[in-house]
């Protein structure tokens, strides 16, 4: 960046041991926010690390990428390896076991985010005392709600364990299928509590919906902006978190591309590297790097799909879309409502699957004509996740390219932070509690993965730094 009134801010590499979210705000001479940037750790070295490993190890190894959403990486890699081994159609048992694992993952991930990360914002307000505006505050004031969150999360985690085999480095999905089915005993344990889970999911959704509708005037502009949206959708246009073709729509809902073949995603999506970030910046090629960025995740998925194939979630989707008269909703805070629509959808899907005898089938793996290249795309809780591999004749991986959800939401999150910072700066060159809170709320709407795969004892704070027009650090706060 070059401007006589502004100086370039050099961002120091953040520690690789703990994942930090770092925000830098650059002011102009009038102490207004000229630019805001969110810096998130991403380990691009993984794509090189996996080269030379046998392809069948990929679905297990990729779980090293992230301790928060290992299941998504596990399944995306397995889908890519299905292509490598020529498994163009999995057995019903294999596909349904994987779907059960995936809906369990989405359910528990969304629940954790809603009950323990975002509900304090919604139930106490952005300006509530930080000593109260946290999960303990929720426990004190809404103990039943907090307990529901823990037990729903546990339910999803147990489904992952039953389908993936274990919590760490699960092995359930393998190239061409799965290595286990669901026993009657396992199924019955989950069926016992399923109706309770559906009811609790409906209750949580109501909180997110009521909050959005009641505060629509004040949150409509909060960190909001028009954008394109991207997700996979089923052949008939239904929301499908596990499989489908790529669809991108404009801010008005016009299709940029639709039902695009996953294997050729690189014909539509390219990635740019910027000097100030370790992260890549994906964009839609036909629009170009400047304006081709897009949003992914629950908001993008609900905007992009034509309908949801489970009745309770579909009724909620229709209500959500009515707010914007059927057009895409570009309100950043609407992510919470859509996340809870997907939570309800996931538990409806889990209920359907648990009642499906195919889960007890024994035909688990198929294979076909071996290929040298494969792409697996899945809708991870935070958005579209791309895994792309090339494998040589010795079965060794020679190329790997990953586009993770938080990367796709990179520009949107930066834009949201910038909007909020511009709106809520006090006029003085300082980071006030109100500004810090709102930056955090805007980032949290996207549920970014601020963590990396390693942690050790420690915290993962959000650090906000403010620089004056000469690039001098004038304030720094963490929480």
């Amino acid at each position, binding site marked *: 960046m070059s401007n006589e009134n502004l100086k370039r801010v050099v961002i120091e590499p953040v520690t*690789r041991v703990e994942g930090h979210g770092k925000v830098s705000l650059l002011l102009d001479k009038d102490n207004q926010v000229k630019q805001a940037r969110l810096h998130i750790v991403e380990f691009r070295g993984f794509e090189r690390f996996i080269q030379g490993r046998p392809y069948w190890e990929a679905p297990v190894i990729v779980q090293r*990428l992230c301790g928060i959403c290992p299941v998504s990486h596990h399944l995306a890699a397995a889908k890519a390896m299905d292509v490598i081994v020529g498994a163009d159609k999995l057995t019903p048992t294999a596909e349904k076991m994987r779907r059960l694992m995936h809906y369990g993952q989405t359910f528990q991930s969304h629940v954790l985010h809603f009950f323990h990360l975002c509900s304090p914002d919604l139930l106490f307000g952005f300006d509530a005392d930080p*000593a109260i505006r*946290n999960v*303990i505050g929720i426990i004190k004031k809404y103990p039943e709600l*907090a307990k529901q969150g823990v037990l729903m999360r*546990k339910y999803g985690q147990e489904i992952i364990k039953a389908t993936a085999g274990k919590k760490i*480095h699960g092995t359930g999905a393998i190239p061409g299928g799965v290595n286990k089915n669901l026993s009657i005993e396992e199924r019955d344990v989950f069926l016992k509590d399923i109706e309770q889970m559906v009811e609790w999911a409906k209750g949580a959704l109501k909180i997110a919906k009521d909050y959005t509708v009641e505060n629509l005037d004040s949150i409509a502009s909060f960190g909001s902006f028009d954008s394109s949206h991207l997700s996979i959708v089923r052949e008939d246009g239904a929301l499908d978190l596990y499989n489908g073709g790529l669809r991108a729509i404009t801010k008005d809902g016009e299709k940029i591309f639709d039902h695009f073949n996953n294997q050729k995603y690189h014909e539509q999506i390219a990635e740019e590297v910027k000097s100030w970030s370790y992260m890549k910046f994906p964009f839609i090629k036909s629009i170009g790097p400047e304006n081709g960025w897009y949003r992914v995740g629950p908001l993008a998925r609900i905007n992009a799909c034509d309908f949801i194939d489970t009745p309770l979630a579909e009724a909620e989707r229709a209500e959500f879309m009515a707010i914007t008269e059927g057009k895409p909703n570009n309100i950043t805070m609407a992510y919470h409502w859509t996340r809870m629509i997907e939570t309800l959808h996931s538990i409806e899907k889990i209920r359907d699957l648990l009642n499906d005898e195919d889960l007890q089938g024994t035909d688990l793996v198929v294979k076909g004509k071996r290929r040298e290249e494969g792409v697996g795309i899945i809708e991870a809780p935070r958005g579209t996740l791309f895994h792309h591999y090339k494998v040589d004749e010795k079965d060794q991986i020679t190329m790997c390219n990953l586009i993770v959800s938080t990367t796709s939401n990179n520009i949107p999150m930066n834009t949201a932070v910038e909007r909020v910072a511009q709106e809520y700066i006090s006029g003085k060159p300082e980071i006030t509690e109100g500004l810090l809170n709102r930056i955090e709320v805007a980032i949290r709407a996207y549920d970014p993965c601020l963590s990396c795969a*390693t942690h050790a004892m420690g915290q993962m704070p*959000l650090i906000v730094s403010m620089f004056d027009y000469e690039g001098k650090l004038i304030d720094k706060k963490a929480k």
Partner: protein
Amino acid sequence: MTSSPKKVLLIGFGNPGRLDDGLGPALAEAIENLNLLGVTVDSDYQLTVEDASQISEHNVVIFADASTNCDEPYIFREIKPKTDISFSSHSISPENVLGLSEELFAAKTQGFVLEIRGYDFNEFGQKLSSKAQDNLIDAVEFVKAKLVELTKENDKS
């Protein structure tokens, strides 16, 4: 009032795909293989809120994790429940998860942390450094004796 032996939960956490960050799960695996009576062993990439539910079903919980800077070869300390949970990220500390267990499930579980000194965290790889491996051996011996001692005690609650 009847009393029964204490129930102990050991949670080893960390990412085995990140070298010494896998010390916690490695310790959990070693202890699980001992099949000690009255001891439940669990492991995960990180602590999570639902651990609060399982903790509430035990008298004692030991959290085992790698540490970047603790004294060698390990430190073992008692912790108290804390209720100052930051919610910027998905991480949750042993003190916080113990606090959740107390708040949500009225648990009176006694908590300990075992920090095992690690050295290499910054690369991908499923192998402990040799110094971390040595520290793990010491830690396993210590925890084994500690667990035997704890499970001999009676639950007087």
